[in-house]
């Protein structure tokens, strides 16, 4: 029989997961609505945002480069990317891409320092212009979130894409 303490900690974990999910869903919605400046406000000034290259090795199924990236960003470089997308000369996003981020398989655990380890899967639909073609990007994310009242800020995001050689013209979206 479960004790009250068990039930309470189970409830805590459930509530934490709820809050993390709500945050990640809202974040995805912001990006899908292309409210990128608002998205920047969710990032901590010392944010670490990385997406390393996946490297196919013979005996390892989940192997990533330690020095080669699609993204290896800090707040300043992310802000520059966001501002660039607002330029009418940022041809990669003219017309803007249509995205839909499906965030699933969320797991959240509280760390000793009060921050939260949030893991999630991401499936991103990516279409543009009047073409019938589209792309999906898939991967998993490992975030460190900092509690901020009822919600969070992003201290760290590591994105591990499933693609060895992406079949994509360019990665002009945030993951």
């Amino acid at each position: 029989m479960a004790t009250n303490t068990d039930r309470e900690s189970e409830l805590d974990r459930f509530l934490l997961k709820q809050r993390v999910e709500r945050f990640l869903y809202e974040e995805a919605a912001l990006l899908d609505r292309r409210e990128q400046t608002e998205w920047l406000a969710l990032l901590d000034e010392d944010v670490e945002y990385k997406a390393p290259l996946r490297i196919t090795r013979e005996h390892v199924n989940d192997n990533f480069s330690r020095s080669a990236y699609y993204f290896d960003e800090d707040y300043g470089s992310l802000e520059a990317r966001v501002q660039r997308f607002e330029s009418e000369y940022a041809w990669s996003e003219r017309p803007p891409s249509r995205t839909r981020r499906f965030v699933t398989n969320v797991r959240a655990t509280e760390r000793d320092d009060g921050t939260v380890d949030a893991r999630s899967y991401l499936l991103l639909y990516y279409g543009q212009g009047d073409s019938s073609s589209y792309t999906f990007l898939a991967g998993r994310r490992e975030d460190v979130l900092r509690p901020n009242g009822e919600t969070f800020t992003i201290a760290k995001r590591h994105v591990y894409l499933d693609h060895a050689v992406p079949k994509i013209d360019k990665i002009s979206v945030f993951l």
Partner: protein
Amino acid sequence: MPPTESKATAQQPDDHADLLAEIEASLGEGKLPLQTFNSEAVHQLELDRLFGREWIFVGHESEIPEEGDYARRYIAGDPFIFVRDMNGDVQVLFDSCRHRGAKLCRAEQGNTSHFRCPYHGWTYKNTGDLVGVPQKEVAFKNLDQSEHGLHSAPRVDSYAGLVFASLGDSGESLEEHLGEFTWYLDIQFKLPDGGMEVIGEPHRWVVETNWKTGADNFAGDSYHTGFAHHSIKQLGLGGDDTVGIAGAGETKDRHVHCDGHTTSTRMVEGEEVFMTYPDEIVDLFNPDNVTADQYRAAKEALSFTGSVFPNLAFLNFGDITDDPNKDVTGFLGLRKWRPLGPNKTEIWSWAFAPKRASEATKKRIYKVYMSNFGPSGNFEQDDVSIWNGITDVADSTFARHHDVELNYQMGTEEMSEVAYDEEWPGPGTVYAINLEEVGMQKFHDQWFEHLSTPRDGTAMSRECGGGCGSAKTDGCGSAKTDGCGSVKTGGYGSTKTDDGESPSERGRPEDGE
């Protein structure tokens, strides 16, 4: 797989002849039929007659520093294993088992002493030698193992750590192919003490672009920079002289055509610029590693962009950053356009830094490279989205039936006041402005020469377009001919071929120059 020559010509004899005649007529006017940028017939001819015999970049030696290190590489569609064998030599082995053809290399890279076939277990040393045949006494008792090593690319050679292979049995040596253009490659690869090395693994991504559009772009498209990349300037991610309108800045802008290859450079005369590398890197640049003229060119250079025929390109951009509030730096990027079809290219993109740079500086150089090039790069994103459009319209009925042509006449006598820089210290024909597309025309001329020469026909030759008289290359080491297709590091290595013919019989000098 590309069809064999006889098959291709048997199937569509007139296609080739008509198409080639049409291309030739266009070329004569500094134009090119749009349809050549998305044509199955052209693609098949390219596989057979261009990628099937020209020197194609495979990788840099620093990618496989230790014995047994290997990486999967391709020449167009053909898979090879780029490996440093147990003797320290670099091999480019055809990735197909000599028994019944299975592929041996299942990873992108790794380290191994042997390659074992997953099908029936034939095992090869990393030299390519066949050393194990399961149940040999019963199954293959008379098999001569020495005759069944992995095939090597017919010719393999290197320059300044850059390893190339050719699927042709004969023709120009790599040394002849690069010609005096090594003057410019030296500036990129030989300047720092300790040499250059690849940082991390190359970016690879598959785009819906014809490979020639990338090649065109790096063969002197300074015209596009100020417009296609205007957002970089707006954001302050790149300086005015690097991303500004071509020919309008304070810099001394030059386009160089040399022995079939091209480079564009922007220089600040009399200044010490060194591509805006940090002092730590500039301190590694040693005048003794190059000639005085090369050193001065490097010193005054803000940027270099260049193209090595047919599908290798490089860029070293200065005054570029990932964030307007951070320091700028130079970085060297190398790229290869790997054709996967008439409308599909796998782009490979490597970042380099001097081997002796500190880890922190290498990281910084990589970050600035990645922020601007590779699939997520602020520059590169915009290029590819534009290039795809060209590939798209090239496949139109209209383009095929109405002789739609692309115009590459900028910089010809009819279009511009052409001035040449006679004082330029390096080899090649040197335009005193960076507004010209004649370099692209030269690329197309060579490309056409390959396409119109049957694979078994005359060896490809190259004529130097005037002014290539003053090279001071010092990189041609001695040829060594031990080991099939292997390369001794540091200079032009061996090019021994399967049939044992020696390099000198192929018409290349035994000891460099």
